């Protein structure tokens, strides 16, 4: 007979990679992403007796993930972490640079703006689903998306100019 702990462990092992992926997009940092997922899984474990149907557990864990990110963002973003070591995967240099540019650009967004973008463009959630997950109105999702995109545009242009300046000097 499978115990509740074994049941949870199987869920956690199966879903952790996907959760860490989302958490990394939310935080841009492996350490914080792991902390975030650890917290989400711990709270899911505490609620496990009521969440044994796997799809409920996943939904619950993701909800905790987003809410924790909103809570931790301002506290942790000012902390210093060791520089991330990018995974040892073959990738074109330009792709890495693009990724770092996007990571830097996302860093200037507010926690909610970043969460909205991840939900809308990484997870392909609808505006309604995004609003429900973040407990805000659809209007807020629209306005935050618009503000976030405007801010990304400004930062991205600045990044390109900076890169071109470095190349020509």
């Amino acid at each position, binding site marked *: 007979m499978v115990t509740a*702990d074994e049941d949870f*462990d199987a869920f*956690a*092992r199966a879903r*952790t*990679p996907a959760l*860490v*992926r*989302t*958490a*990394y*997009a939310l935080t*841009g940092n*492996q350490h914080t*992403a*792991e902390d975030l*997922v*650890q*917290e989400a*899984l*711990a*709270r*899911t*474990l*505490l*609620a496990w007796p*009521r*969440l044994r149907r796997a799809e409920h557990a996943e939904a*619950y864990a993701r909800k*905790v993930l987003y*809410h924790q990110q*909103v*809570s*931790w963002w*301002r*506290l*942790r973003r000012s902390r210093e972490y060791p520089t*991330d070591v*990018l*995974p040892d995967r073959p990738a074109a240099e330009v*792709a890495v640079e*693009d*990724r770092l540019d*996007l*990571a830097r650009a*996302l860093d200037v967004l*507010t*926690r*909610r*703006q970043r969460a909205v*973008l*991840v939900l809308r*463009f*990484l997870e392909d959630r609808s505006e309604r689903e995004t609003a429900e997950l973040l*407990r805000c109105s659809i209007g807020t999702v629209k306005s935050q998306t618009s*503000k976030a*995109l405007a*801010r*990304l*545009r400004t930062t991205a242009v600045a990044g390109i100019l900076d890169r071109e300046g470095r190349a020509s000097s």
Partner: protein
Amino acid sequence: MTDENQELRSGLHRLADAAAPTDLTARAHGRAAQIRRRRAAAAAVAAIAAAVVTIGGATQLLAGPDRPVPAVTPTETPGPTEPSPTGSPTMPLTEPPADPPTGAPAEPTEVGGELPTAPLPVAGAPLTLDHFVSPSGNIACILGAAEVACEMDEHSFALPPRDCGLEDYVATFRVSRNEPPVVGACQTDTAFGVDAVLPYGSTSRNGDLACQSQEVGMTCWSRSSGHGFSIARGDYVLF
């Protein structure tokens, strides 16, 4: 979807792909055990506080009207500038809320009672935590010497409108030594993420400012001015 949005979508996927695969199952068990211990400790402190109140009440009852005994008074004597708690008795500690319905988190919540509308008497020696969260984890406070600010994670009340531009509008409540309380702030410091918990029934003090945690909510006030706020998931009161 526009080209720009498609580019962002691809970029976010590339960023997420940079996450290193890992197994966090053991860490999750460890953290869950830590949360369980923290909850048990908070519940024990609340039970002791409730027992002290009960014993105090029973002593007064046994004494009867013709047998004066020293009244059970708060150990903190209000100073000359300490405002009176408007003559009202200490807010009764309410029972913790019932278990949430299936599927909801099994967290304690600061809901369901009438919020205090004045500074609270302090039973026992106050703590000196300057950063702490409520036992439910929904309220986080920074208790400075000049100002106390508490932020709420989840709340069902509406905040007064305020334009924060591109920044987040945060459910923060602040009171300083001599100014009335202020609601809402744009992008501010937060105590969320700290480990210190102010147990129900406990008070933390920093100079003239103090906060008391109760099942009904968190109350913070200035002992100089008598101004303060009480906050819970469902409501808030400024005084």
